Every structure is written in C-alpha cells, then in structure tokens.
C-alpha cells in the first residue's frame, strides 16, 4: 500500500495502462509538456514519448473525433477533457459516434475509448469549470459512465475503463484531487472488484444514502453527524453511474426502507431522478417514505462565492434525512401541489 493523492493515483493508473498495452495512448490539451492542468499526466510525455502522450490542438470535437479514428484502427485512446464544461463541444462525437459505432457496425468496430473528465464544483473555480454533466451521458445508450471517489478506485477503475472494450466516460471529482488515500499499486487488476459494482462505504440501518464522486465524502460526513443524533445512515458509493448496480442498491433499500439521493448536478431529470425511479420501481413495497433528492438547484452553476448555496452540503443532506424520516425539517408544514 502506498499513500497517494487522487491525482497521483490517476497518473499511476495511466502509467500502468501505457506500460501494459502499446495500443493505449493519451490525448488532450496541455497533457504533455505541462503534464495536464491538474498534473495528472505529469512525467508521462518524457516516459512514453509524443506518439503516446499527445498534446492536441485546442478542439474537443477534434480530440474525440480523432480518437474515434484511432479506435477504428485498433488503438485505445484515453482522452482528457480539460474541464467538465468543455465536454460539450465534443458532445456530437460522443453521443452520435463513440456511443453508437459498435451498434451501427453490428459489432465490427469497437470503441474502447476512455474519456476522462475532471469534474464538478466546490473548488471556487471560474465559470464553466464546475459542471456536472453526468446525466447526459447516463441517458446515452452505448456509453458506460463511472465516477470515482477515492485514490484506490481512481487507480483501479481507470485501468478497468481503459481495458474495457466499451467506451467509458470517466468522472474525476476535482474537489478530491488532492485528498490522499492508500492505494495498492501492485494488486492484480483481475482481483479488483468490477467497475460496475457499487460499494457500501458505511453500513447503517435507518436510511440509505445513494451518492457518487465528491459527494461520497460529504455523505460520509453527514453519516458521522447523524450518528450523534442516533440516526444510522448506510452510504452507498455508486461508482458506476451507468449501468447502476441496482442489486447493491435495492438490497440496502429493502433493509432501511428509506432513501436519500444526493448529487451536485441539477435535480430536474438528473441522475437522482433515475435512482428514485429505479428504487421506487424495485422496492415500492419496502419504502416507508418517498425517496428524497438532495441536489444542486435547477440553475446554471453560480459564481464561485455562491457555490456553497448550490452544492448540497452536510446540512442539506441531514435535512433530507430528516425529511425521509419525517422528523422536523425545512419542508415540515409546507403545502405543495
């Protein structure tokens, strides 16, 4: 075990993937000479050369579109989108090409492309640098979508994503980039839990909290705080956002009967909607209260000084827990249609 930040763990994962498979190559803006604006790819250009660590022109559709061509040729491109908010210019290439080409060619052409997205808010960033676009990709058939919440998963799941023959959109929470954790850098990939499995990160009896990415830490903090009030939260880190591991989720919900979903993204048609719907469909008769969503507001990401009023923090999660437990909460007594 080695203690690494998530940034270092991701870098180590990329290094291993590059070393293990000559068809793997990295592409993106500023990933070479600079080592990425977050230094995830630091040192990789020197180690693997400019044919495998490629500083590209400044155009996201171009990056993903050329990755499609490389995949056609048998390569496994790992693409870095510099910040979440810059994935949209590549949306057409991702949704109409990357996600569909295996289907369109009846399996003849594979798209083992990994799209890394430094993701979401909480770091006081400028406009367009704190987006949570995961629901767009979850809704897109043909993609797999994962989000990591700790250095160990970052290291392992990134290699799993690269090894997958399917395209994977890989979300990396910026606000945990510098959080440290133990990483087993020598473990065999074959021994690791599959990328598609959710993980119960804290067992509990009263309420299931479903979350992923940076919110896992917030939810864990909320669980600690709730414990002081005698409430036991079970926290699940989804890890895979598409497909959702409903086996793990429903087992928990059948036990607790109550669910809070929390994510930074806007509520309307967000991933929380899918989770509430999926859980309600599967566990309706076990539910003792309507599932509660604790999410970002349905607003464009606000200026940095106001992001604390957008991001669902510990208190807002606890308020959601109160709601699902029908304890006094911010909506007690509120009438609505």
């Amino acid at each position, binding site marked *: 075990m080695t203690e690494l930040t998530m940034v270092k763990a991701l870098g180590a994962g990329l290094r291993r993937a590059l070393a293990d498979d000559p068809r793997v190559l990295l592409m993106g803006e500023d990933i070479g000479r600079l080592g990425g604006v977050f230094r995830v790819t630091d040192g990789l250009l020197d180690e693997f050369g400019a044919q495998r660590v490629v500083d590209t022109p400044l155009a996201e*559709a171009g990056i993903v*579109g050329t990755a499609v061509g490389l995949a056609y040729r048998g390569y496994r491109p790992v693409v870095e989108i510099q910040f979440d908010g810059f994935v949209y210019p590549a949306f057409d290439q991702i949704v109409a090409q990357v996600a569909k080409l295996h289907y369109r060619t009846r399996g003849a052409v594979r798209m083992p492309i990994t799209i890394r997205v430094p993701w979401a808010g909480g770091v006081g960033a400028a406009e367009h640098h704190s987006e949570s676009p995961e629901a767009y990709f979850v809704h897109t058939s043909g993609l797999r979508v994962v989000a990591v919440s700790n250095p160990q998963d970052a290291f392992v799941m990134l290699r799993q994503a690269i090894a997958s023959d399917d395209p994977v959109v890989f979300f990396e929470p910026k606000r945990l980039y510098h959080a440290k954790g133990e990483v087993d850098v020598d473990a065999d990939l074959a021994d690791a839990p599959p990328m598609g499995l959710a993980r119960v990160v804290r067992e509990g009896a009263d309420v299931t909290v479903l979350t992923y990415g940076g919110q896992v830490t917030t939810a864990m903090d909320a669980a600690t705080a709730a414990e002081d009030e005698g409430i036991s939260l079970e926290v699940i880190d989804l890890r895979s956002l598409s497909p959702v591991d409903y*086996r793990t989720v429903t087992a928990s919900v059948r036990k607790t009967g109550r669910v809070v979903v929390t994510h930074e993204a806007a509520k309307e048609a967000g991933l929380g909607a899918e989770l509430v719907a999926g859980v309600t469909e599967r566990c309706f008769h076990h539910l003792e209260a309507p599932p509660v969503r604790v999410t970002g507001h349905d607003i464009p990401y606000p200026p940095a000084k106001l992001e604390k009023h957008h991001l669902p923090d510990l208190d807002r999660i606890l308020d959601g827990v109160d709601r699902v437990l029908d304890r006094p909460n911010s909506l007690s007594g509120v009438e609505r249609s």
Partner: protein
Amino acid sequence: MMYPRTDHDLTTGTDELAGVLATDGSRIPHPQLDAWLTDVDVPMLRMLHRDMTIVRRLDAEGIALQRQGQLGLWAPCRGQEAAQVGTAHALRTGDFPFTSYREAGVLFVRGARPDEFIPNWRGEAHSGYDPYRIGVATPQIIIGAQTLHAVGYAMGIQRDGVDDIAVAYFGDGATSQGDANEAMVFAASFEAPVVFVCTNNQWAISEPVGVQSRFPLADRAPGFGIPSLRFDGNDVLASLAAMRWAADHARSGAGPAYLEAVTYRMGPHTTSDDPSRYRDAAEVEHWEARDPIARLEALLRAEGGWDDEFAADEKAAADEFCAGMRAACLAAADRDPLSVFDHVYAEPHAGLDQERADYAGYLAGFAPEEES
C-alpha cells in the same frame, strides 16, 4: 494584406479546373496530372469505363428498388461516377476511406458485394457491410463527422509505421461544419497521412454551394497548411491522377493533401427530394453535356478501345450486379426482434441483459395467441 483569390460563380463555373479529358473526350495536356497517368492504357480505360457504368446502373437500381418499396431511401450518385471511381482506383488495399452516404462508387471499387448495398437503405441495419472486410468505414450521415475519424485513423497508421493512408470523402456542404475544419487543423498539426476529398456536387440538398462559400473550397486548405487541388470531377482520368498525387503526398510522409472534385449531383438529394423546387432544368442540362461516362467512351473510341463486345460485357456485369441487389432484397428475412439489443455494448451489461429478457418475455406473451 492577403486577399481571397477570386469571387467567381461556383455553381456552374468549371474554368480553372485541372483536367485532362475535354467534354468531347479529347485529351488535354496537363503536365502535373499527366505525370500521374503514364501507365494509362486501353485496358485501364476500359476498367474505368466499366466500373463507372456499373456504378451508374447500380445507382439506378437503388432508385428503382426504392420506388418499388424494397428500399426505404436511396441517395443517388449519378453524375459523380468519375470522381468516385477515379479517386478510389488510386487507393491500395491497406488504405482506408471514410465516406458519407453518397459514395456508392467508392464502395463498389473497394469490392462491396451487391448484397452489401442493401441493408442500410432497406432499413435493416445501419451498416450494410463490415468496414474491415472491404476497407471502408461505415457510411456517415452526420455531415462532416467522418473527416475527423479519417484523421484519427491516419494518426494510427502513423504510429503503426506503415505507408497506408486514410481518406475522408465529404460534400461541399460539409465544408461548413466545425468538424471538417478541425480535421484540417489536426491533420496539419500531426502531418497525418490523410487525403481530404471534397466532392463539390454544387448542392447541399437545396442549397447551392454559394451558400457555403463564395470562393473555391479547395482554397481553404492551403491556409491550414495543406496543399490542395481543384479538378474536374467529371474527368475520371483527372480524378485518378489527382488522387494519385494526393495519396503519394500523404503516403510519403509529407502530411495531408486536399482535393476538390468539381462535379454535379444529377439526381435528387435522395429519393425523398424534389429538386425541381429549387433548381432549373437548364442547369441540369448544362451538366448533362459534361457527362463523365460519355466522355470516357469518346476517348475509348478514339483510342480504338471500344467495341460491341466490350459494351456488351460491361452491360452484362452491370446486369448481374443489379440482379444481386434485387436478390438481396428478396432474400431479406425479418431480423430477430431481440437483435435490437445486440452490440449495444461489446461486453456484458447487466441492465441491458435484463431489458432484453423482459422484452423477450413480453413478446412471448403474444406467441400463443398467434398460434391459436
């Protein structure tokens, strides 16, 4: 200050076009192109004529099959046979073109079988063929998207250390798309072995090329650092020579090259389109007189390469090909409903497997009723 080259009529103007074959079939000297045509003899001219003839016939067959309800749609390529057949013949087996939906001629030259022209237009499959079997990417409907794929593929060729090339075929309309421009940026930046072939058939559905540009499209490439050539796309020898030049340029490590094949879409945009709403018969007639096949026939006659036997042979080959297309329609069986779930993912996917099972169960519910 740098000024644009000229502002001339792009719709019908064909002056300044590089070419070696006049409208009447006589040879015009063109030092640069001729250098790539030294091996052209009567057998080769015959092969080009035969291929264009078959392409014209298979295209007509596609329209006919659509009219008969056998196909859902067809995008005719009549008028563009020379540009497609000529450029495709300059390629090697290992080269890899990425096309739009209109390059029936490229597919034919690359060896697509009659039955491979059917499934996508019939609505049975999105791709009628395995791209790796014939060495052509699956057709692209999202205008311009394939240009980037070609550049990426070329970057892969580069890394493999071989001297194959990728080719991007796209239309005049596609030149306006961001993707097609980013493709030039990436190709130039990485000196990728790719040839861009812009088929300027004067129209993007109902929009004349003048909506996209007031200046020759080929002029854009040099600004991106890519040498370009604008040629008479109704001249099959010019098409062959231009592509040989461009392919050689890319193959030799000199980076991308760009071709603009100036030609004309003689038919509707697709079988759903009615071009009489937006263009004059006179314009079509003007281009009828520049027909690429008639022109080559004239040359063949002049060179003594034309005889009834050859004409009968190529007609027979075309008939046979079209019979194969019809047979493919008749042979088409309904696809298994559950195949809609096939190939969404390359690896197992719990959620989708469940959906497939659920839908299978749903369909099974109808079976007994139908049997009873």
